[in-house]
């Protein structure tokens, strides 16, 4: 059975889109996409570590291994 080693992946990936000199918008240096933890688990193993109840509610999952905080990756970009 697949054993998720959950620290061994990054939940966010990036690539560099081609920018033509004829593209009028200032170039987006990096384009990001998410690869959340569920993609790295085939079938959840038993007894995974849990959040306490209130924290679980706030985070949207009971299981630490499934938690993936999302923030706008382009927030820093001004234009």
């Amino acid at each position, binding site marked *: 059975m697949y054993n998720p080693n959950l620290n061994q992946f990054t939940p966010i990936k990036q690539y560099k889109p081609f920018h033509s000199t004829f593209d009028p918008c200032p170039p987006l240096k990096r384009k990001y996409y998410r690869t959340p933890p569920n993609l790295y688990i085939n079938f*959840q193993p*038993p*007894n995974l570590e849990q959040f306490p*109840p*209130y924290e*679980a509610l706030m985070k949207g*999952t*009971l*299981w630490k291994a499934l938690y993936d905080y999302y923030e706008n990756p382009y927030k820093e970009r001004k234009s």
Partner: protein
Amino acid sequence: MVKQIDDEYYQLMRQIQAVDFVLVELTLYLDTHPDDENALKQFNQYSAYSRQVKQVFEGKYGPLMQFGVSNNPGPRWDWGSGPWPWQV
């Protein structure tokens, strides 16, 4: 009639939401892991705890569920009195 919504309402509601969220998560987990005895045990514990907290809440703010799932409607029919969840 709209009931008085005080700090305790929000506190108790938050407690119920937290406990019930654990139950939602365990339910979905048990749906695909029906043989996990630890999870089932935890589910039963939280299920009992949820009933306890709801009893306290319902005594003060009226029934949470209808069709007789929340027992003891009290001396008067209270279901229709606000506020409703999207209003508070």
